[in-house]
């Protein structure tokens, strides 16, 4: 493996990890709201959150391209007011990975929250704990295994993301080239041996991530 190849692996790993960390607070907040509250329009939100799971990734990428391009509503604002570009930069990779893995995190976390006995949260409140304290000291610790399994799934999804990434980040060597993008372009170039090396790393990472998630879920079930 050349240093370029290691750079691609390293970049893919840290941007996938970063995207998982970035979506965590939003994912947990939404999962909690879906698990514990009812409000008008809730089913619409549920559907929207699930869309990136069901739509073709390039379609999601296209929507992101329109929104975050320099001529788009959000991208235009960022470019004009903050001189900040998203498209064709590493930030676009972060965005694509985050959006595509978000539904996986929300689903896992929601199920984990639903399994926490609400009575425990209620009693904690009678003991004088505010909603925030209950959330961090009771709800999250009891839901921790499910949440972590969700984070691992999100991370694994981010590792393998292609369709949306190539749409909004391109495949700029050294800047936005992830494992999946690199495998694709190496095949295009006829560099099969490079492609296979990267494929090997990709499979190893995905295997480790999914295996870890399954192990956590097994431990969760056994301890009940």
């Amino acid at each position, binding site marked *: 493996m050349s240093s370029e190849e290691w750079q691609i692996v390293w970049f893919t790993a840290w941007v996938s990890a970063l995207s998982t960390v970035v979506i965590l607070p939003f994912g947990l907040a939404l999962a909690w709201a879906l698990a514990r509250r009812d409000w008008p329009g809730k089913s619409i939100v549920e559907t929207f959150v699930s869309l990136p799971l069901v739509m073709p990734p390039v379609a999601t990428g296209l929507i992101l391209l329109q929104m975050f391009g320099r*001529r788009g509503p959000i991208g235009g604002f960022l470019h004009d007011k903050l001189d900040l570009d998203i498209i064709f930069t590493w930030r676009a990779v972060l965005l694509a990975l985050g959006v595509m893995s978000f539904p996986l995190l929300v689903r896992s976390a929601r199920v984990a929250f639903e399994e926490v006995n609400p009575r425990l949260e209620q009693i904690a409140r009678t003991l004088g704990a505010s909603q925030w304290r209950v959330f961090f000291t009771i709800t999250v610790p009891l839901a921790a295994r499910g949440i972590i399994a969700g984070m691992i799934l999100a991370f694994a999804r981010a590792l393998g993301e292609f369709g949306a990434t190539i749409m909004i980040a391109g495949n700029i060597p050294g800047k936005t080239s992830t494992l999946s993008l690199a495998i694709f372009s190496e095949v295009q*170039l006829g560099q099969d041996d490079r492609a296979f090396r990267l494929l090997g790393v990709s499979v190893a990472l995905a295997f480790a991530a999914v295996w870890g998630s399954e192990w956590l879920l097994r431990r969760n079930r056994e301890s009940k």
Partner: protein
Amino acid sequence: MKPLNSLCIAVALGLCVAVAKSSAAEITVFAAASLTDSLKATTAAYEQTTGDKIIFSFGASSTLARQIEAGAPADIFFSADEARMEDLDKKGLIDAGTRKSRLGNTLVVVVPADSALPIKSARDLASDAVKKLALADPKAVPAGIYAKAWLTKQNVWSVVEPKVVPTENVRAALAAVESGNVEAGVVYKTDVGISQKVKIAYEVPAADAPQISYPLALVKESKQPEAAKKFLRYLAAEEAGQVFQRFGFILLE
């Protein structure tokens, strides 16, 4: 009539139609993305007169060459540079006797139609005003390879390279410029004609540009070699030539 009887008659009719259709040939042409509009224009009349059907697959010549190598069912390969054709020739995948360099082209630097960026030379692409430059992937796609050759010859490639956004094919580079997400791009002059959203900022003079040559050839594994050769002859002839010129291609001879 019993349902089973009508089903049998329908199947029989369908087979007759299929047999009738198959007497006309169906030819698949793998062609460079930059030939999209011009090639489609040449075939309308051809299909009318000969009754043959032409199916196109447009894309980066490098991608198409890979696919032919992998056994894709192409009858004709029309590449945007000699190197891709040479590659297939070395692998014995094309009929060398039918190979012909047909078209030339001009490189241009394009900017979004509303851009005020002044680009008068290759050197201007090196300036800070150009943060991102869209090129068809300079590692593989002919348009990008030509652009890199030009910029290298002008001694600005090392400065420009970090700004490059490599795209799948030359039309994708054009689209990137149209979207405004890059400041400029290098595409073929023939690509600009179809777009309202970009304008030519600079036309690369023939002296500075590398030799651009579009060869075409029969793919050896073709299932319709006669019909394909017929179409090849048509593409090499004057009628098609006029169409290509109309789109801005240079005719080579």
